């Protein structure tokens, strides 16, 4: 009996062992099969994935802390095709709230491109539109009927650049496109700083494997030297002046000549930076985006101050050096005449600048000689970039002896600002040497950087000393006296100003000058004894008057009057009285 049980037991054990071995064999076979490999890959796919965490783009402030460029939430609206119950309702909701074509969306949902399970409908839907869609989806979810339903409609928030001041300072700021890249101005120049560094990490879907995601530091925020209120005022004056004087375009820059801080820079045209897609309709080419730095032109008589600076600095002339103006002078076989074609008789150097005599300045340049003249022009930075921290700067052109297209007559024409080209900012940079005791500043827009709660102020930089302190003081005085003698429209009541007008003929593409149109300019700074602002005005092709003294000079005065109010610069009498206490 016991033997019989033993056999039965052994048989049962054997069967179970065989079954166990078969089960193990089957498990091994399944694990080693091709299908298992596919399943493993599928599992890996759903286990998690690499995600890129983009930092929030740094903000841009003006010097008083007003936000010029910030960020705003927009949504990517998409349709998860697997979860869609009611394509008609989804297409209708998208059409009504996001302005998309119902037919297009409906067709795309029903016949998506092969391999697509998620359909992006709108990349930059506004918060308001999405809030309405979310509300609608929630209401329909809570309803008892399965349809209508917005199941499958998904919203993913992201940040996009936003400019609360719309078009204000648009030429300085530049813009950020939808891919997050900065174009023009500060946005392009400091794109790497503003954008920060994205971090790519593997994120598991299994919450049991929660990994610590590294903190992504935001992009660096920037504080600009721009004064928002002054910028706004200058833009208003520019727009008014274009209308008043019938000019095609214009540029006005306000800079602190002692440290190169650009306080305002207005140019036309401007655009609402929140609608940068209009760029192509507003600008013909990139150099037009900011004429103050991107569009060199023949500035005319404003450059006479540099010719005179060179002559004073070499000791060739003094303010009282006499000059007999006969109304014309020969150079390189070409006769140079004054702007009014008249002879002004005996003049000194103050009179030469006061009456803006081409003949006198040509004589000064001849006395200097090409080597001295172009040596000084080079030291003043003509033909070179100023290094301003905005994208899109152009260098202008200064032909020098030895260049294939330089002729001896160029020495004469260059002395009064024809035959060379420079941007308004280049001329300001050069003139800063005269206003700033011989020391030339590097213009800049960056005042400070904000990162991790710390503010790093940017120190001013200087670009050499082309002239001595004495020369700068002498020329400063000459220019102030010339304006006063002339009773210039540029004068600012209560403040002593130095400055110079410029009226330049415009070269045509055929190599001749257009005698009917001019570029009117004015550069000036003040107060003379302690310059705190330097202003450049350029009006292109004014029709009310061709002369800088009748167009750009009064605009300068208007800007200067606004500047002294907004920068709290008291009149000379008050300031000097205060200093004397």
């Amino acid at each position, binding site marked *: 009996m016991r033997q019989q049980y033993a056999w039965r037991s052994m048989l049962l054990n054997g069967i179970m062992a065989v079954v166990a071995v078969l089960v193990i064999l089957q498990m091994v076979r399944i694990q080693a099969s091709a299908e298992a490999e596919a399943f493993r890959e599928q599992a890996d796919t759903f286990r998690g994935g690499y995600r890129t965490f983009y930092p929030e783009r740094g903000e841009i402030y003006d010097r008083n802390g007003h936000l010029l460029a*910030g960020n705003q939430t927009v949504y990517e609206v998409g349709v998860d095709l697997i979860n869609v119950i009611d394509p008609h309702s989804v297409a209708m909701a998208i059409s009504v709230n996001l302005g998309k074509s119902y037919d297009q969306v409906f067709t795309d949902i029903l016949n998506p491109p092969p391999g697509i399970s998620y359909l992006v409908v709108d990349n930059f839907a506004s918060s308001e539109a999405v809030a309405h869609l979310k509300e609608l989806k929630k209401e329909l979810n809570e309803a008892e009927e399965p349809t209508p339903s917005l199941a499958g409609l998904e919203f993913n928030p992201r940040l996009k650049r936003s400019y609360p*001041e719309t078009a204000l300072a648009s030429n300085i700021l530049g813009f950020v496109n939808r891919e997050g890249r900065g174009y023009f101005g500060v946005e392009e120049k400091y794109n790497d700083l503003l954008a920060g560094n994205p971090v790519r990490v593997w994120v598991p879907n299994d919450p049991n494997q929660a990994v610590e995601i590294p903190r992504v530091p935001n992009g660096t925020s920037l504080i600009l030297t721009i004064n928002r209120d002054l910028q706004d005022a200058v833009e208003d004056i520019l727009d008014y002046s274009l209308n008043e004087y019938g000019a095609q375009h214009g540029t006005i820059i306000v800079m602190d000549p002692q440290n190169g801080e650009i306080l305002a820079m207005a140019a036309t045209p401007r655009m609402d930076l929140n609608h940068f897609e209009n760029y192509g309709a507003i600008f013909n080419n990139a150099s037009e985006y900011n004429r103050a730095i991107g569009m060199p032109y023949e500035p005319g008589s404003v450059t006479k101050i540099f010719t005179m600076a060179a002559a004073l600095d070499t000791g060739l002339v003094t303010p009282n050096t006499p000059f007999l103006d006969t109304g014309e002078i020969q150079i390189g076989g070409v006769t140079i005449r004054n702007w009014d074609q008249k002879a002004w008789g005996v003049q000194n150097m103050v009179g030469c600048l006061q009456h803006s005599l081409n003949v006198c300045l040509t004589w000064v340049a001849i006395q200097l000689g090409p080597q001295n003249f172009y040596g000084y022009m080079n030291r003043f930075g003509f033909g070179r970039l100023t290094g301003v921290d905005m994208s899109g700067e152009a260098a202008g052109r200064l032909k020098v002896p030895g260049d294939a297209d330089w002729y001896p007559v160029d020495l004469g024409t260059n002395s009064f600002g024809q035959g060379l080209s420079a941007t308004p900012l280049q001329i300001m940079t050069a003139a800063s040497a005269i206003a700033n005791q011989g020391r030339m500043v590097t213009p800049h827009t960056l005042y400070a950087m904000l990162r991790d709660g710390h503010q790093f102020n940017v120190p001013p930089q200087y670009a050499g000393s082309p002239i001595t302190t004495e020369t700068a003081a002498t020329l400063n005085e000459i220019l102030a006296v010339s304006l006063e003698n002339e009773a210039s429209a540029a004068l600012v*009541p209560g403040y002593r100003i130095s400055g110079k007008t410029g009226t330049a003929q415009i070269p045509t593409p055929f190599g001749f000058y257009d005698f009917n149109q001019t570029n009117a300019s004015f550069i000036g700074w003040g107060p003379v004894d302690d310059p705190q602002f330097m202003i450049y005005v350029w009006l292109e092709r004014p029709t009310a008057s061709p002369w800088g003294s009748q167009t750009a000079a009064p605009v300068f005065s208007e800007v200067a009057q606004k500047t002294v109010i907004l920068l709290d610069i008291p009149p000379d009498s008050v300031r000097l009285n205060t200093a004397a206490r």
Partner: protein
Amino acid sequence: MNTTNRLNHAYSQAPWRVQRQWVSIFLLIVLGFAMIATLYLMVTSEAAIVGREIQDLRLAIITTEHTNADLQTELARLTSSYETQRRARELGFRPMKAEEVEYLYVPGYIAPKAAALAAAPELQPSAPSTSPEYTQSLLDWLGERLQTPGRGLR
């Protein structure tokens, strides 16, 4: 021989007693496994809950950052140059002219040059937020204790 058998008999345990001991050992092992399994389940479920909370908090951080950015931009829009001027005009203000400005001498006053916008320093981005107690092995901890001067084992 008899003596030996007697001794064996005297010291050997009853079969039911041996059986009970084996059963007890088996039950102890089962109980141990059950405890380990329970602990494992508790820890993993806790970790899963915390992981889900972390995911939710991460989302909340992103949402808050977005809301902050939106509010800041909205505030800037409401205080923009255009809006401020519009409201000022509505209230009857007008731009001041140079001759209307009256300057007052204030001894010792130094006008601010520009904004100081630096906020309180944020947390160090690279600072680990997980306490070392949760990441160090026993050997790491021992090594750190021995290598840190003035900090013996406690």
